[in-house]
Structures are given as structure tokens and as C-alpha cells.
């Protein structure tokens, strides 16, 4: 794992973003429309950058051959994802494993493992359309981790999860972050505080702040901005500071 480097220039969604991300859990914070989803989609190789370079696992994703190899080592949970309504949980995750070109002999065990890790083992044979929103989200997480990805991109993975499930999910995130580069976009600051090793704050397509949950909390403790917890105050303080410098520019 050599980490990934992103330089992406685009007038609308992301502008002059330079990021290098290594092993660990990276929280991607920011207001709606800040460019979190755009960044994740570029990292997932679904969208191509209009300018700039994206390097994943040491390979330039602009090269067709490198792209195929990198995609096999990726996991991606889109913010909104569809499924074939007749599929069971196991069939859906197996199909994604097949799309990721996993060796067929390893697939059944990997599928069971991924489904068990998101706590859906007892519902593996249920059709996805019969599951609740939170469970569908967990199916999405299972398909993302089925190939034990080295780069895992999760767009709003905790949306629709109840508090208990979110706590379990953070535990899973910490496990995954031990060996992989995990990027999690979220609008829940407490998710970042609990599970992330690094924080990147985006605003209007630019990087507004980079640090750790601790530095963001420390920022909040010295500021009197709005927020119920120090890390929330840190979030608003960092955002305001960034906007102030943008105005000066």
C-alpha cells in the first residue's frame, strides 16, 4: 500500500484538491454540496477528473490497464445504489464479487464473511427488497468489503443506520482501517470523532481543513463557535476560518 495521491481541478465540484491518503480511516466532512461525493466518485474511478491526476495504489488511473487492476482492489459504497429487486443478499454480494473478478473458489467463503461482518448472516437468503433501509445500507457495505479491498470508499455509510448499528459499524471501520485506506464521507461529526484517524474538511470544492479528530476537538475547545460538542465547535470554527481566508484571497 503506497497510499494515494489526488490532484483534481474542476471548476464546479472540486477545485485544486491535493490530497495524499495512507492506511487508516479518513473522515471526509463538509456541508452539503462541498464536493464529498464528487471526490469519492473520482477516487472510486467512476468519474474521471477533468484535470489533474489520480493515483491509486501507486498506479495512475488514467491508464486503462492500471485502472482494471486498481478496480479489483477497490471497494465502493455509493451514496445511492440500486439493486436488482429479485436478488437475495447472498446473490447480490456474490454478483459484485464476480464483477470484481474474485477467484470463484474463494467467493462463497468471502461472501459469507462479508455478510456476517455487517451482521446480516441470518438474512443472507432474504430478498433485498424485503429489507429495511438500514439493512440495505449494510448490504451495500458488505458488497464493498467482499474483496477485502485495499482502498475502501464509503459515501455516507451510516445514513439510515440506528445508533446501535452505527456503533458496531465504527468498530468495523477501525478494523478495516488497520490494513486498508478507508475514506468515509459523512455529515455526522461524531462518526468522525469515534472512528477516524484523520479528518479532511471540504468546503465549496476545496480542502478547508486537515488534521485528526483530536486537533479538530482542540480547535473547538479554544473557540466559542456554535456546536454542542468540542469537535462540532471545531468543525464550525475550521469552516469559518477557511471561509474568512477565501474571502481575503
Amino acid at each position, binding site marked *: 500500500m503506497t497510499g494515494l495521491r489526488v490532484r483534481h481541478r474542476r471548476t464546479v465540484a472540486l477545485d485544486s484538491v491535493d490530497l495524499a491518503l495512507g492506511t487508516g480511516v479518513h473522515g471526509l466532512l463538509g456541508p452539503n454540496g462541498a464536493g464529498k461525493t464528487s471526490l469519492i466518485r473520482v477516487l*472510486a*474511478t*467512476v*468519474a*474521471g477528473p477533468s484535470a489533474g491526476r489520480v493515483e491509486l495504489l501507486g498506479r495512475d488511473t488514467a491508464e*486503462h490497464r492500471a*485502472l*482494471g*487492476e486498481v*478496480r*479489483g482492489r*477497490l471497494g*465502493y459504497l*455509493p451514496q*445511492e*445504489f*440500486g*439493486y*436488482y429487486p429479485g436478488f437475495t443478499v*447472498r*446473490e447480490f454480494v*456474490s*454478483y*459484485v*464479487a*464476480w*464483477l*470484481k*473478478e474474485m477467484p*470463484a*473458489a474463494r*467467493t*462463497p*467463503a468471502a461472501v*459469507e*464473511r462479508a455478510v*456476517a461482518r455487517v451482521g446480516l*448472516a*441470518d438474512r*443472507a*437468503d432474504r430478498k433485498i427488497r424485503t429489507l429495511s433501509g438500514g439493512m440495505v445500507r449494510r448490504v451495500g457495505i458488505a*458488497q464493498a468489503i467482499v474483496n477485502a479491498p485495499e482502498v475502501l470508499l464509503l459515501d455516507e455509510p451510516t445514513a439510515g443506520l440506528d445508533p446501535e448499528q452505527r456503533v458496531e459499524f465504527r468498530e468495523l471501520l477501525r478494523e478495516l482501517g488497520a490494513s486498508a485506506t478507508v475514506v468515509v464521507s459523512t455529515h455526522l461529526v461524531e462518526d468522525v470523532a469515534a472512528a477516524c484517524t484523520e479528518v479532511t474538511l471540504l468546503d465549496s470544492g476545496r480542502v478547508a481543513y486537515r488534521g485528526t479528530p483530536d486537533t479538530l476537538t482542540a480547535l473547538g475547545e479554544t473557540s466559542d463557535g456554535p456546536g454542542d460538542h468540542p469537535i462540532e465547535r471545531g468543525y464550525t470554527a475550521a469552516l469559518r476560518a477557511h471561509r474568512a481566508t477565501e474571502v481575503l484571497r
Partner: protein
Amino acid sequence: MTTPWHASEDLTLRYADGSLPEADAWSLEKHLETCTACATRVSTAVRNTPAGLVLDEVRDLILTATATRPKGARGSDMCGSAAWARPAPTGRHLTTHLKPTLWSLGPALRGTWLLALLTVVVGALLLNRAAGYEATRTLLLTLAPVIPVAGVALSYGPHADPLHEITAATPSGGLRLALTRTAAVLGLSLPALTLTGAALPASGAPGAAAWLLPALALTLGSLTLASYVGCRTATAVTGGGWLAAVLVPAFAAHGGSLTARLAGRLAVCFDGAQPGWAAAAAVCAVLLAVRRDAYDHLENR
């Protein structure tokens, strides 16, 4: 230790059918804890009651069901960490190999498009056989080239495939999957429509196989165009373009019935132009190969 008394026949039977007073039942139960002989007799008596017989039956059913349980059957026992550590039954392995390949053929083959293909085939045969409409082949050949093009539109891309966003981030996404699905669409529609055409009387229409090269060229043209503008727009242009090229001159012309004019127009498009269609198909195939990288990020277009 010797026991002072043993349960009588009457006591045992009354205990088994539940008519023994509670105090007596308790003292009997206390005795059964230490007396094997009485416990065996009570047990036999209970088994012969109606409830005991039902229980026996249930036990037999469960044992039979467990013994004949098919390999690879999935049940709630598959949960927990021990389950995935256990080697998967061979039946499951087969489905893992076969099923995804069929799934990958995508949304078209199990959705609207398949229904449309069936409607055209059955409709054409009914129109000719049941309604006695002679010029059915002309109508079929007019419509036929659009059907594989529509199959492409309904097979690939964010508008057609609910899984597209996930698929696009996998190594299988892109041109390979689009081609696999197109091949499936062609593999079904070309023989089905050609055979249908052959089963209809000619009545002045071109041969039943005359549409094959044009359909191939239009399909490859759609895929090539899709690398610039996306599948939906591309197929609308090629499919709509074909219909316009055939129908507009046929409607605009004078003399003869509409179907005769249509048959004449088809003859112009098909009969003399086969080398042209072959060349167009070849050019499109080469262009598609050149444009293959565009399918890596098709959603941008």
C-alpha cells in the same frame, strides 16, 4: 437403598392421562427420581397417550427431514462465524460459477426488452396467420433493426442498470460488460426475428435475413456513438435515424399502397446496400476499439 413401595398400574395410568390429583402426582414424581423400574413404566404409559403419539410422529418427521436435507440447502444455521469458516457445499459452488454469468447479461434480458421482442415475434405471426395480413414481413423488417439497438439502450449505463454505479467501479465494468450484454441481445434477437421473418410470406418484401448486416452496423454504431454521448442518446440517434430514413420517404412518396412504398424503401436500404452496411459495421467496430477507454468513465458523457 430399597424403596418401600412401587407405583400401581392404576396410579401410573392416571398420572399419564393427567387425572391424578396434584399432591399424588408430586409424591409419585419424587418417587420416580430414585426408582428406575417405576420411571420406565410411567414413561411407557405416557408414550401411549394421544399426546405421546403426536410427539413421536413429530420426532420422526424431524429426523427424516434432517436426514434427507439436500446438499447446499441454506438455513438459519449458516449464521455466525463458524458458518463461513465451514467449506461450502459443492452445490453452492456450481451456482457461484454459473449464476453471476447469467446475471451479468443484465437488465435487458429479463426486463422490458425481452417482452418487446416477444411481442414483435408473436404479434407478427398473429398479424399474418390470424388476421391474414400479407405485408407483415415488410413491417417486421422495418422494425427489426431497432430492436437490438433498443436492447443496447436498456442494457448498459446509469439509466438502464440500477447497479451501474457499483459496476462502474469494478474491473468488469466498461466496454467489456457493454459488449457481453450486446452479444446476448444480438444472440437472442437476430435468430428470433430472422426466423419469424422467414415464416412470413415475402409479398414483395426483401429477404428475411436482409436486415442482419444493417442491424449489426446500427448496433455497433450505437456503441461507438455511446462512447461520446452515452448509451441513451446514442441509441435514440441510431434507432430514430433508421426509422426516419425508412418511414419518412415512404410516407412522402406517391403512388401505390403505403406498405408497397415501404417495401420499396426497404429494398433500397437493404438489397443494393449490403456491402455498404458491412463496411459501416467494420468501420464502427474499429472506431469502437479506438474509443474503448471512453467506456472507463462513460457516465461523464
